[in-house]
């Protein structure tokens, strides 16, 4: 729905209102375009200055062996940093790690966030209280939350081990969560999902409130139960929001940084690095800014490709 309309507009030929180039028509069109630019350009100019311009500079930086000291010479190396990145096992592993993180956390955040939003969409007494409670993880600072999660996932008698060993009996002994690659990533995934549920719930809640009540009433009259109404009324109506949420969560998933930085720092032995923590180490600890920028840009390119595929896929499926 959304995507098709917007995309249709974007790919449409500029329409001519009248075949006769009347002066009044031209004036009207010019005023329309002028007004449109007045809407877009102030914000876009600021955005371009603060985001796009530095991004281009970073791209150029990635093609040099950049030295940060003022006045130092930074020789041009072309794509050497990029070829180095794609031959770097730590970088490739970091891509895999963030891919796994995304694949795990995004569906969970969507399903749970949507589920909670649906439950809170009705006139349930006390729903404001619940809405606030679910939002609390989102507003708690990463530093505090990472510390707490480290504590909960401690290799001794943390809460996580209590659940996994004593409660669920899935493993016999306490797990040293942060000493193994996949157990550490599991802990990071749980942290990411926990912190993000309130965020996606918020967006879905906003979207669900936009669903006209008549549609629900009509479906109910037709005998549709709650689940069927959800499937055939709510879901299609919030498709635009769903597209937005999925794209943003996927981008956020690949760009995960602060939670990994605080929980494991990329360790042990670089096993839980994600591209951005690896970039941070290279740039800020070892002064290899050119290489760090190349890593970030490679990640960005990958994310754009994935988002592009997602976008194209939703367009296809809605057109059918």
């Amino acid at each position: 729905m959304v995507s098709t309309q917007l995309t249709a507009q974007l790919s449409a030929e500029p329409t001519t209102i009248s075949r006769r180039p009347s002066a009044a028509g031209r004036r009207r069109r010019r005023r329309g375009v002028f007004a449109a630019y007045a809407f877009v350009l102030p914000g876009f100019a600021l955005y371009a200055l603060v985001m796009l311009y530095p991004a281009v500079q970073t791209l150029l930086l990635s093609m040099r062996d950049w030295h940060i000291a003022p006045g130092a010479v930074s020789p041009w190396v072309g794509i050497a940093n990029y070829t180095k990145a794609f031959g770097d096992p730590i970088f490739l592993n970091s891509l895999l790690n963030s891919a796994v993180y995304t694949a795990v956390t995004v569906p969970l955040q969507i399903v749970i966030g949507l589920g909670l939003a649906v439950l809170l969409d009705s006139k349930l007494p006390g729903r404001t209280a619940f809405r606030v409670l679910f939002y609390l993880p989102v507003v708690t600072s990463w530093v505090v939350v990472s510390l707490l999660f480290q504590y909960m996932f401690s290799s001794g008698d943390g809460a996580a081990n209590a659940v996994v060993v004593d409660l669920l009996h899935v493993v016999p002994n306490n797990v040293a969560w942060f000493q193994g690659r996949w157990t550490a990533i599991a802990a990071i995934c749980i942290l990411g999902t926990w912190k993000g549920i309130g965020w996606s719930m918020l967006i879905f809640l906003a979207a669900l409130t936009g669903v006209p009540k008549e549609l629900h009433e009509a479906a109910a009259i037709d005998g549709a139960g709650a689940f069927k109404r959800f499937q055939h009324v709510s879901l299609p109506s919030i498709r635009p929001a769903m597209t937005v949420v999925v794209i943003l969560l996927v981008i956020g998933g690949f760009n995960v940084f602060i939670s990994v930085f605080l929980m494991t720092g990329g360790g042990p032995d670089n096993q839980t690095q994600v591209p951005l923590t690896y970039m941070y180490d290279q740039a800020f600890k070892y002064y290899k800014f050119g290489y760090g920028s190349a890593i970030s840009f490679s990640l960005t390119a990958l994310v754009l490709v994935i988002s592009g595929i997602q976008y194209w896929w939703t367009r296809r499926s809605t057109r059918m």
Partner: protein
Amino acid sequence: MTTSQRRRRIDYAIRYLILGTAAAVLVYPFLYMLSTSFKTRSLVLGAPLDLIPSNPTLDNYAQALGANNFGRYFVNSAMVAVVSTALIVALSSMMAYAFSRLTFPGKRVLFTAIVVGLAIPTMMLIIPQFLLARDLHLLNSLQGLVPFYVGTALGFNTFLLAGFFETIPRELDEAMIVDGAGPWRRYWSLALPLARPALATTVIFAFLGTWDEFAWALTVLNDTDVRTLPIAISLFQGQHSTSWGLVFAASMIAIVPVLIVYIVFQRFFVAGLTTGAVKG
């Protein structure tokens, strides 16, 4: 009890059960933080289930509030957050409306630029942005923070709002065009009121993002009188040890405005705003 009444009761019961469980899981770390903030000896964190402090004390809160200039930092953060949020909402809603409802040459290019920017991690841009801030003399000032906070939030919020504006039935727009309304009128009287839930979302996210922002503020701010709250809280952490009760108490105080903004604006998540708008 009628069957529909009973069904509603069961429905509510199930809902409360699920919501309650989810709430317990989601809120637990927050409760842990809250409980630790009332403990004195907190250089080491207590056991996970040790949620009721044995000798609860308000010392941490007193120390946090009484610490040098804490009120000043609070006000600094508030000013920056309010101004930035207002600008973010204004600029991103205008851009989103234009992308969603207006035609102009270059629309596709600009929108693509916005979407592409979403994928760029801001951590990567920090040095060029720092040099830019330096050259524009925006270092070490609160007003210098605002352009960067607003500019980096525009992409996300424009994308989000454009998605929401798309759900407004086009017929309403066309009706107003027939009546001779220009784009500004349509934006102000039609799109904004109907997109209230989405705008509320933007306000909530924008405020949270700017209130909590740490990395950029840390990079560009030096003087104590322009320090923001996240930096102040982080300064309670020591090199060799940290009194977590103090940090958590300060964090609790910092969470209050964000929660207030949330509680106030989530009221707009009310169903039926577009109901009846299409008929007649």
